[in-house]
Structure formats: C-alpha cells, structure tokens
C-alpha cells in the first residue's frame, strides 16, 4: 500500500487520445479527441473512462461489465496493443499519454464500443460450441467419474472469456472475416479433451478443417501473446492443426 500512499499526493495529469467515430452517422468522421484528467491511486482505464464520460463528454461510448477481468467486455487497443481496459492501470504508462482505439475485426458500434457478442455467437454456432452426446445421463444417479487431470485440462481451456483479443491481434482474422480465430480453435480443443463430448476428429474436421478454420492460422501467435487468460493457444493451434492435417 505504500506505493499507493506516495502516488496519492501527486496526481499527475494524464492525456487520453480517443478515437471517436459513429459509423451509423453519415456526418461522422473518424478522428482522435484529447482529454486530460488527473490520475488517482490505483486508477484503471475503467475508472478513467468513466470520469471522462461523466465530467467531459457524455457522448463517449465504451463497454464495461464486471470491471474485474472476468467478463471479457472491455477489450480495446491501448497504445497499439489489444488489452482488457479494466485490468489496465494508468500508472504503467510512464509518459502519461494513453491512446485508445476500438478492437479491429469486429463490427464497430461507436467510439470504443464493438459488437464482440455477435461475432462470438456466430463462432459458437459454427463450431457447435456445446456438448454432443447421444444420451443424457440420469441426473438422479451418481455422476460418471472423470479423471481429475482430464477435468482440469478441460477447465484450463474452458477459461476463455470470449473477449476477442486473440481475434483482434490476428492477421488472418483481419484479412478473412470468416476466420474462426484462436478462440474458435481453442473451443474445439476444449470439447475434444472433454470426455462428455462424443464427437470424434471427423466431426471436428467437418467444422474447422479448412482455410477459414485451423488451416487459416499463419502461426504469428500474437493471440497467445495477448490472451488475458494466458491460454495455451500456440500449443492448441499446433495440436489441432496436426490432428486435422492427418485427417485431410
């Protein structure tokens, strides 16, 4: 806490350069707008952007829900990097200048607000992001045992929060709007390790065995570099590619 005590006194002036644009408004042209606010201890971009909206410009659009890095709503480009804004602390920007742009690859709603929900819904439908099993087990009887390690491996891949940061950092996704991204490949990997899902490699190949699926990946791996949940995307992309390549 001593760190916070020290910064309490100073309160440097931060400079925010924020991309403003409303694609639905024919008059609107993309441009940067500059705001200055005073830094407070422990300030995150969640706190800063709300101050800007409440005190400087009520017309500024952005999305937050949990403000704790759990819900995946607030991905944006922060000084050129796709990050979760709620987990980004202003103190980490030494010169106090923070430039914000919306995540690319998603439908822009306005300013920093993008429609990741629609993209993720369509990805979920495409990879059939649900358990496939011929028969559902009776819920009044003892559950089927699962090896603790296998449950843990499934959980590891289930931690994805669909924030879209892997998609925004992906060169293929920027060129091919139908590319399923690391998030889609990871989802398939998740169901392929889950013993509750009865789909085999043939079924997965049907879903992602093409250039808008696993073979679209150029292995630049910015997805893994930026994933806020540190998912093992590189390993899973390589694993699924090997698996799918042997099918084709």
């Amino acid at each position, binding site marked *: *806490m001593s*760190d*916070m*005590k020290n910064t*309490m006194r100073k309160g440097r002036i931060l400079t925010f350069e924020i991309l403003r644009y*409303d694609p639905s408004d024919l008059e609107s042209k993309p441009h940067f707008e500059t705001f200055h606010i005073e830094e407070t*201890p*422990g300030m*995150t971009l969640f706190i800063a952007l709300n101050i800007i909206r*409440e005190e400087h410009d*009520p*017309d*500024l*659009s952005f*999305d937050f*829900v*949990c*403000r*704790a*890095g*759990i*819900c*995946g*709503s607030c991905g944006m480009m922060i000084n050129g990097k796709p990050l979760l804004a709620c987990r980004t*602390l202003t103190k980490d920007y030494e010169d106090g200048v923070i430039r914000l742009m919306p995540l690319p690859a998603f439908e822009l*709603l*306005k300013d920093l607000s993008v429609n*990741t*929900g*629609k993209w*993720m*819904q369509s990805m979920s*439908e495409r990879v059939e*992001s*649900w*358990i496939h*099993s011929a028969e*559902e*087990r009776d*819920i*009044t*009887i*003892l*559950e089927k*045992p*699962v*090896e*603790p390690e296998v*449950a*843990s491996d*499934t*959980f590891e891949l*289930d*931690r994805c*929060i*669909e924030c879209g940061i892997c998609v925004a950092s992906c060169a293929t996704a920027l060129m091919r709007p139908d590319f399923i991204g690391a998030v889609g490949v990871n989802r398939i990997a998740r*169901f392929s390790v*889950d013993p*509750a*899902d009865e789909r085999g490699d043939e079924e997965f190949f049907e879903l992602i065995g093409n250039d808008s699926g696993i073979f679209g990946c150029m292995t630049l791996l910015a997805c893994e570099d930026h994933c806020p949940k540190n998912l093992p995307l590189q390993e899973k992309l390589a694993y699924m590619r090997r698996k799918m390549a042997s099918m084709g």
Partner: protein
Amino acid sequence: MKINYCDALVVGGGLAGLRVAVAAQEKGLSTTVLSLVPPKRSHSAAAQGGMQASLANGVMGYGDNEDVHFADTVKGSDWGCDQEVVRMFVTTAPKAIRELTNWGVPWTRIDRGPREVVINTERTTIVEDDAAHGLINARDFGGTKKWRTCYTADATGHTMLYGVANRAIRDRVDIRDRKEMLSLIHKDSRCYGAVVRDLVTGEIEAYLAKGTCIATGGWGRIYRTTTNAVICEGTGQAAALETGIAALGNPEAIQFHPTPIVPSGILLTEGCRGDGGVLRDVDGHRFMPDYEPEKKDLASRDVVSRRMMQHIRAGKGVPSPFGDHLWLDISILGREHIEKNLRDVQEISKVFNGIDPADEGPAGWMPVRPAQHYSMGGIRVKPTGESPTLFGLFACGEAACWDLHGFNRLGGNSVAETVVSGMIVGSYFADYCKSHEIDIDTGTVEKFVAAQEEYITEILSRPVGVENIFAIKKEMQTIMDEKVGIFRNGETLYHAVEELRELLRRSRLAGVRVKSLRLNRELEEAYRVPRMLKIAISVAYAAMLRTESRGAHYREDHPNRDDLHWLKRTLVRWPDPESTLPHIGSETLDIMKMEMPPAFRGYGRKGMISEHPLSARRQKEVDEIRSRMEAEGKDRFEIQDALMHFDLPENYKDKNERFGVGYE
C-alpha cells in the same frame, strides 16, 4: 409500433434467465431472452468459489444430505426464509450439478488417496476413498456443517454460465442483447410482456408473450462500494415495482461480503477462507476465533462482516488512504494450492493491487473490507416463481425473493439458486405459458409503449444544467454506503429515506447534454437512476421500519432478533408512480408450519433473541412427530413429508443417489 411475439419472454441473460429459457424452449415454446449485454458477459460469470449441493462424495462431506443442507440454509437465513422453498432447493441442487455435468461444466474432481489441506491454520492430511476417484469434489464454505461447495477452481460461475449459455445456443433460444426492459405490459392484474428499448438504436418496441420471467440479477449498484458488475442496477425489479401490483419482498435484506479487495471492491471468494485462509488485523493477529470460537473465519457472511467492522471500530484496522481495512492471508495455503485453486484471486490481487498472495508472510496479505454483495430481497414470488398478485409474471435468481435466503444467504447458495430456480421455476413458467394465451388488445399495448416514448421525449426536452444525473447517482450511492450499511439505526435511516426522496424529486429534473437516441449513456442514466432510487428508497424505508436485527439487517438501536414481532416478510408496493414513498406491508411467517422452528443459529451473538412462544410449541410437536415416526421405522423422507410437505415439478423430487449410501 413494432410488436414482437413469442410464447415465453425471459428478461435477463445470466444463469437464472438462461436456465429458465432452456426449460421453456425444451418444452416446445418459442422463447426469447432479452439481455443488457451478451449473456456470457453477465454478472453470473463473477461467481468464483462454487455451488452448494449435498453430493457428499469427498471424505469431508460424508454424512451430508438434503437435511443437513436444509438446516444450514435455514440457520443462515436467520429463520427469515421460506422453508418450503429451501426444501425444494436442497432436493434439486444435486440434480442441477449433475445436469451441468452433462452440459459440460468441468467440475474439479476427487483424487484418490491422501491429500494435504489446511484446517484451522494446521496442515492436515485427509484420505479420499479409492472408489470416489473422479467424482465431483467440494470445498468448505461459511456457515455449513459439511464441505459442500462444488467448484471449478475459482471460476465456477464462468464455467457454469458457459455451460448453460452454450446449451441455450444449442437449443436455438432467441437471444437478443443490448436490449433493456423499460416497463411491464399488464392488464387486469395479468402480465403480457414488456416495453423494451434497443440500447444501440434507441428504438422502443413491445414484446408480447404468454408469460414473462424476470431474471435480471441484483441491485448492488445502488451502493457505491459493491462487488457487483456495473449492470446490476435493479431496474428489472424496478419495472415490477412500477406496476404497482407486483411487490418487492424484504428489500432491506442486503448482504455485505467480508472480503472484497480494497479499494476496487472486487470480490475475493469465500473459497479463500473455505480453503483455510484467515483474516488478520493491524498486528497480524488472527482475530476471528476471539469472537466466534466455533466457526471462526467461517461463520456466516453477515456475522463475519459485522465482526470485522467491530474489530476495525475497536482500533484494530490497518490505516490506508482508502480508510481502515483488514488483511486476508491465504499465503499459508501454499503457492501450489493458490495457483491451482485460487488463480483468479491471485490474478486480481496481482493486477489491481500489485500483491502476490502466494508470497509468504505479510508480503502476500491482501487488503479487504466488507462491501455490498447481494440482495436477498427482490420481486416477491410464490414457490412456483409466479408473483402472487401479478399473474403471468415470474421471477427467479437474485432478482426474486423466492425466498431461499431470508436475511442472510450462505456462500455457494447463489449460483446454486440461479440454476436450481431456473429448473424449477422454468418448469412452472413453461406450464403457465402453455396453458395461457396472449389475449390483450393492441390498443392497451400501444398505451404502454407510448408512455415510455413520451417519457424519453420528456427527458430529452429538459433544460441542461439544472441537475446532473451522474452526480445524483453518486449521491444516492454515498447515502446507501454511509447510512444503509452494515450497522444501521433508526435516526440515520430516517435521514437516508428523506435524502433519497429529495434525490428522486431532483432526478426528475435532470436533463441530458446529448440529444441522440443512439448509444446515449447519459440518457440511459436519466431514466435508470429514478428507478434505482425507488429501489434504494424501498431498501432504506424497509430497513427503518424493521425494528429488530436479523441476519444481515443489524439495527444498533434494536439489537435483538425479535421473533415475537418481526417473524415476517416485508412487502413493498409502489402504487402511485409520482409518489416518493412506497406502501410497506408484510406477511407473517407461520411458525406452526415450519419444519425447523426458530432457535439459536450456533454462531453470532448468543442470547439476543426475543422468542416467540409458538417456537417452543412447534419444536415440541416436531420432536414428537419425529420420535413417533422413527419408532414406527419410517425413513427420513417420510418423516420430512409429515413435518412439512412440499411439491416439485418434473422428476426433481426423486431421491438423489450418493456415494457409498445409495438412496438413503
């Protein structure tokens, strides 16, 4: 006017709403879910520690069953709950866990053989049965007799939400996000749907349905310091309240969680203490055993939060620029355990506070202080989930007062309630939708839509600069924090009510600077904050009138739990929309129908109960029935049924199989 028709309308896309929607869709109803945000971003995702269900797979859960879960929940509620609902809940919870397993929730499983755990700060070895290997594991939580909280590390809400949301996608439930309910459409005390605003375009439409279910979560954001997501503003409950027909139950029952991190208020799960973490004061002293020798750090949340504030008041807090706080120490659990089972906690602490809780000694201690966490109250509904006064309106999850939690909810019982009530209420809701028609004339619908359109137009026409809606919201949140918090008293509550009423009047003058209908947050605030204020006034006013202390509602000027006068549920109605005060009434809890009559909880302050004479009489009756039936060789299910009959839909009343004991 655009009218959208469906069979079943669900407002709210978190765990409860999605589970209800799946129930309706799978019964062949066309089901629409309206959500403020994409459903997988709902606040359900923030539930960390786990879900209670009496599976009793692990050695620390042996002997657990519905009866034990029932008793823990009733005691936790400080006898404010509806015991029939608790029975419905505990009977269905094991089925819910197993259903979610089928839907892909990767519950943490049991490893056979010895395992080191921390109990009462001592490293202890427990040994799991070979045959239990691979079954669903459970951890300890506050206020429970057994280790009953099933989990996926500390991201339980997230995995549950994804499991249920993916199921809803599979079932092709019509999910529409960035949609907000402004009001309910009703006629002759029957609900027919909602007036809904698209948050992107600003367009207002009618959604008509045979039945409507509200599952919009809690109202934590009426407070400044809360663990709740920014969307938890209580406007769903406010829409029900503004009908003047539906009622809120027990709004004053607000839970303050012991361990949100300071200053952000982000939750650190109860699993921290469940797994063996402890609270420490400015001297590094573990103080909870001094106050609560039996349950220590794992008494119920209301008790721990109060003891913490009591300790801070006694000068034992740690001073900081953000006020005094205490420490949460999980470093004693070891790095390996933290990085496997408490990794989100570790991540939150590292990112927001620069503290790695796995670092040994004081370096790893995390600053915590109690903050608003949960609303036990909500839209009052019957055990079927339907409003007793506005037919065709259902509610479940945190938005409802079903009433599972009474005056204090146990940790692990909220995500459990979302899916369990989603199953039970979803079934009754679907039956209702199947047996009713949309027999409302479009002229009436038009009036409801026009009223909201006119309201928005009126807001946009207000002069700018008279009142600022953001400032009014902050004032409301400050009043709630300072005057309707953990320690309450009549005089302060009176001032809170008066100040909130004044804010409600002022909020009606707040103009907006940008006149666009599209993605206009200030406009949203301008129509939401007055609704939030109606909730806040309901909370403060009900707290002022309840002159006793029960569960999380603690009155310094009335410290006793007063069963004689206050064994009742507050009911709030708001018949006059222009008024700044609601009508407050109540319904009495019938002791003679309780399976477990009021008594001491086993933790918290002793001897602070004004007993009701019927409690002893009913206890005697219960004891007599039990001993007679036991002598007749009846089993626990038959005895329970004789004490307090309850119903469940589907096969939810079937017995639950358990490891080693079968269906006993």
